[in-house]
């Protein structure tokens, strides 16, 4: 059965059918189209799967029928269901003789299978055969499949043929062959390394399509290795010049722009080749300037090319004139009403400020508008820009804004990203310690455990190491303010675990250091934390260790330790804890409290978290003791592996190893808890604690293991010489190596970074200047915005500079306007004028300037075509009447006044071309008849109705013209 719906059109097109479709298929498509929900759609598809499973296995299915089945399979997978039961039939279909059936088979296979699928091997043979076909369309179909299905191993099977096809007389084949080669290069560069010269050759192909396609592989090649392609600069420049001079076929024009997509690709390539290369860049200046001048900024595509020009200009060796043009375009983008253009403008600004940072000032208010825009995409883009232009003078405003925004959004992925950016900026540019700590607190409070635990560790390290290189006073102030803020924050409910760890650690280390708070204040708070977050063992562990430190400092300072009752009950609870780690900490705390001041000071020195720990792994200090023991008749130590009869013990080695570590309570480890995977945070371990952090290992952390378990036996601890054997501990924690030096090198690098942040001299100068400037020039701008601008753009425009810029912009834009009109023929100008009237109101989303949606060019040739079409259509419709099928068609329209013939007459009368249902070729101008066309919808509907498919009232959208 022929598809009636498109009957009229296909008749006029002169091509009949070929796309055989049964009522069953039409019903399926229609029911999918009318499904009101995804659930309903799913039910339809599940039914269809059942039907197809039965049908497709029937014997002797005619190939047209099979083709339809395969397309139904495509539908099933497209809608998210598994159609693997039919893959093999798609594979079989690629063997078919009919081109259409074969290509459908290839299409289905490329949609269903990835290059590693087992069935691919069955297709390689067919592809090989098809690549040799006399019919160039078969060759093209095979080349399409090559790009999608051939993997690294099968490349050699088709490579020789593909290379041969590079010289095929048909340009379509050459184009696809070059893309196949490109695909091989993407998958396995070495497989085609000897064929790279072909890409250069095809660049000079006399067909613009082949040349344009060749730019894709060349772009990839140049991205990987710029220097080998510097010689091509001249060629690319000359191609771009020819394109802008409209030397390419009109067929490549798009909205009056000559081959814009090729221009864009060329500009991308030039940007790569000219980057940091003055000589290469100088060859490009003229042509890039030409592109700038010739671009029509009233169309989307013109702006797309202009944007690419800016990218190119900001990548190649700077040229003042081009940079000026770029800045002008950016200001036009930013001033536009279109969000798309503003977005592009913000992006372009981000690129250009790398070269000329001062241009950001000209656009400060536009940037702030974008920042406050309700459109989220634009807002994010603007934050990205702010991130790029952060310096010590504006970091406070930017980070504060970022944090506010971070709090307001729900997308965890993006929240995490912004949080880490805040941290990065704060670490890099923080103007004061106080501010830094406060910013970090906010980030932690609001993003909680989304933030990488590394950030918490960094914060602890920063507080421990301090900012200033030698300024101890500043460091202790920083710590005091941290302690103070943490004591306040602890009042908040539900703090994230990572943040609590930081708080406990800092309180333990520095809680009593400045004498502001007494031990009972701090220990009380720590007990509260342990109690409030009793389900979080990690936090509890931090809290207990912090308690131990506070008590140790008290003992060392010679003060009486008076344990709070809540602390005592906490201890009692933890001594019986199921967590061996917590239990051990509690025992250790108990042990420490029983020691004398001297011993405590030795094992728990105050503020020693940054000291390096030296560990004598060989326990050489015990040599004398062992010697003595052996002399007394003791047995020498035999390594476990050499001992007879302990093989079966080997399994427990890891756990039991602690027995040989003197002084560690082995009973605590007797019941290994594989679930607890304690980790030690990097670099900030105080010499005397083990801190379990149940987080994945970060590669950078693994090299640091300053682990010194606390001897819980007072007599052992008292011995100054005693060092613990750590092998067992290390195994348990999975630490491969131990390099104490790294922590020092880390700290120095950190300090240098922070040292740079201290420079914030210019800020005061700038802000005074700004207030003057803004008072003078931005009277109508709200005070808040001005303030924001002032703080963001610190060194704002000098008063005398602003008007000059404004003048320049307007002058340049009028200049551009003139220029853009000059090369245009009067015809084009006319089309611009008529454009708004032709614009269908519902065509565009995104609120671009309406002119972008104007129909294609209005060149005289096409106008002729329109006239011809119209007459042809009329005659086609007439001849249809005499054709055998025509009575039915006419009957169809009997009840609607919308005959094919009638419509075209009406169109002719109105003098505008119309995309009527019967028009085969597109009309270059979509005239006033554009817009929602109820006639067409009716017509289409009645056709479907006629075929017996149920009425479409459920989803009339299906019939709406996309372009109207």
């Amino acid at each position, binding site marked *: 059965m022929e598809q009636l719906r498109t009957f009229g059109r296909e008749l006029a097109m002169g091509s009949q059918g070929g796309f055989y479709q049964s009522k069953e298929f039409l019903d399926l498509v229609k029911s999918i189209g009318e499904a009101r929900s995804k659930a309903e759609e799913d039910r339809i598809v599940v039914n269809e799967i059942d039907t197809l499973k039965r049908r497709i296995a029937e014997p002797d299915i005619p190939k047209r029928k099979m083709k339809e089945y395969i397309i139904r399979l495509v539908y099933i997978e497209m809608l998210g269901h598994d159609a693997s039961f039919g893959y093999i039939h798609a594979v079989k279909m690629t063997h078919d003789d009919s081109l259409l059936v074969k290509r459908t088979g290839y299409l289905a296979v490329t949609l269903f299978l990835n290059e590693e699928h087992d069935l691919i091997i069955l297709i390689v043979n067919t592809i090989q055969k098809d690549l040799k076909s006399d019919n160039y369309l078969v060759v093209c179909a095979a080349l399409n499949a090559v790009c999608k299905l051939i993997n690294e191993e099968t490349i050699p099977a088709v490579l020789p043929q593909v290379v041969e096809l590079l010289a095929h007389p048909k340009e379509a084949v050459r184009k696809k062959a070059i893309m196949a080669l490109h695909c091989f290069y993407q998958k396995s560069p070495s497989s085609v390394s000897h064929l790279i010269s072909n890409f250069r050759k095809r660049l000079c192909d006399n067909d613009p399509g082949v040349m344009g396609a060749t730019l894709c592989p060349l772009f990839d090649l140049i991205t990987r290795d710029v220097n080998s392609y510097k010689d091509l600069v001249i060629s690319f420049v000359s191609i771009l010049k020819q394109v802008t001079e409209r030397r390419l076929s009109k067929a490549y024009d798009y909205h009056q722009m000559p081959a814009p997509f090729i221009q864009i690709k060329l500009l991308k390539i030039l940007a790569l080749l000219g980057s940091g290369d003055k000589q290469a860049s100088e060859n490009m200046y003229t042509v890039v300037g030409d592109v700038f001048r010739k671009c029509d900024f009233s169309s989307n595509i013109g702006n797309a090319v202009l944007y690419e020009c800016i990218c190119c200009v900001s990548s190649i060796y700077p040229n003042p004139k081009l940079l000026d043009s770029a800045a002008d375009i950016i200001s036009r983008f930013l001033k536009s009403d279109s969000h798309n253009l503003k977005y*592009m403008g913000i992006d372009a600004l981000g690129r250009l400020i790398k070269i000329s940072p001062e241009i950001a000032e000209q656009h400060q208010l536009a940037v702030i508008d974008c920042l406050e825009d309700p459109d989220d995409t634009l807002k994010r883009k603007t934050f990205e820009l702010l991130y790029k232009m952060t310096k010590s003078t504006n970091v406070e405003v930017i980070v504060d804004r970022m944090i506010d925004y971070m709090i307001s959004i729900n997308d965890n992925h993006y929240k995490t990203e912004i949080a880490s950016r805040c941290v990065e900026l704060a670490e890099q540019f923080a103007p004061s310690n106080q501010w830094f700590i406060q910013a970090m607190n906010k980030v932690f409070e609001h993003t909680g455990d989304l933030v990488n635990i590394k950030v918490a560790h960094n914060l602890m390290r920063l507080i421990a190491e301090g900012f200033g290189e030698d300024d101890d006073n500043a460091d202790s102030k920083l710590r005091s303010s941290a302690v103070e803020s943490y004591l306040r924050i602890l009042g908040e409910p539900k703090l994230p675990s990572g943040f609590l760890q930081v708080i406990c650690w800092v309180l333990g280390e520095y809680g009593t250091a400045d004498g502001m708070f007494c031990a009972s204040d701090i220990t009380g708070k720590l007990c509260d934390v342990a109690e409030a977050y009793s389900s979080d063992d990690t936090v509890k562990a931090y809290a207990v260790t912090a308690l131990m430190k506070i008590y140790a400092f008290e003992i060392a300072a010679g003060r009486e330790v008076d344990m709070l009752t809540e602390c005592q009950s906490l201890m009692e609870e933890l001594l019986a804890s199921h967590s061996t780690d917590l239990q051990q900490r509690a025992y250790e705390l108990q042990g420490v409290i029983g020691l004398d001041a001297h011993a405590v000071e030795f094992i728990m020195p105050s503020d020693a978290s940054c000291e390096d720990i030296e560990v004598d792994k060989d326990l050489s200090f015990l040599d004398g003791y062992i010697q003595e023991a052996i002399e007394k008749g003791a047995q020498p130590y035999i390594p476990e592996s050499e001992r007879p009869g302990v093989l079966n013990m080997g399994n427990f080695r890891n756990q039991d190893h602690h027995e040989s570590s003197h002084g560690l309570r082995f009973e605590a480890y007797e019941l290994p808890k594989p679930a607890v995977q304690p980790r030690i945070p990097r670099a900030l371990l105080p010499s005397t604690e083990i801190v379990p952090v149940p987080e994945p290992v970060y590669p950078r952390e693994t090299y640091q293991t300053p682990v010194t378990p606390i001897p819980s036996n007072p007599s052992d601890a008292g011995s100054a010489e005693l060092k613990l054997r750590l092998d067992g501990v290390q195994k348990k924690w999975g630490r491969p190596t131990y390099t104490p030096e790294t922590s020092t090198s880390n700290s120095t690098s950190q300090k240098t970074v922070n040292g740079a942040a201290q420079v914030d001299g210019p800020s005061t100068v700038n802000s005074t200047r700004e207030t003057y400037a803004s008072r003078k020039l931005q009277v109508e701008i709200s005070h808040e915005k001005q303030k924001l601008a002032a703080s963001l753009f610190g060194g704002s425009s000098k008063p005398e500079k602003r008007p000059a810029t404004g003048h320049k912009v307007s002058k340049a834009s009028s200049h551009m306007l003139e220029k853009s009109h000059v090369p245009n023929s009067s015809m084009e100008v006319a089309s611009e004028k008529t454009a708004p009237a032709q614009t269908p109101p519902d065509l565009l989303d995104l609120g671009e300037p309406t002119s972008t949606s104007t129909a294609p060019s209005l060149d005289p040739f096409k106008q002729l075509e329109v006239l011809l079409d119209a007459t042809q259509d009329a005659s086609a419709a007439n001849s249809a009447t005499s054709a055998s099928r025509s009575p039915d068609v006419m009957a169809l329209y009997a009840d609607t006044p919308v005959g094919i013939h009638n419509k075209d007459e009406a169109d002719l009368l109105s003098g505008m071309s119309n995309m009527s249902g019967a028009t085969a070729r597109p009309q270059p101008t979509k005239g006033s008849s554009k817009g929602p066309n109820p006639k067409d919808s009716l017509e289409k509907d009645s056709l479907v109705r006629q075929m017996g498919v149920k009425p479409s009232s459920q989803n009339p959208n299906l019939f709406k013209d996309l372009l109207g």
Partner: protein
Amino acid sequence: MVNKQGQTRLAQYYEWLTLEERRALEAEICSFIEHRNYKIVYRRYASLFFLVGVDNDENELAILEFIHLMVETMDRHFGNVCELDIMFHLEKAHFMMEEMVMNGCIVETSKANILTPVQLMEKAS
């Protein structure tokens, strides 16, 4: 391509993703424009949304216009193209796309070149 109800009408990937990954990705798309490391460029025509996922180096405006070029091309072929045209002739729409994009790159932007093979194929059968 997804219609107003968020139902998929045509899907083509240039990197292999499993069915599960595709389902997850397509479900999330509609509300995000910058999506993880991708960008979604979308454009609406009547009831149909056209969505293109690109990486971060792509010129979004150009992609937006590329979508329009594709719609114009389909319009030239079908005449007043509508959602049903694409649904009834899914394979044709795919063939056009195969002519326009290969290996994830734009390779052909001349409507005549895009449509010739499709129309020849139609004639041949």
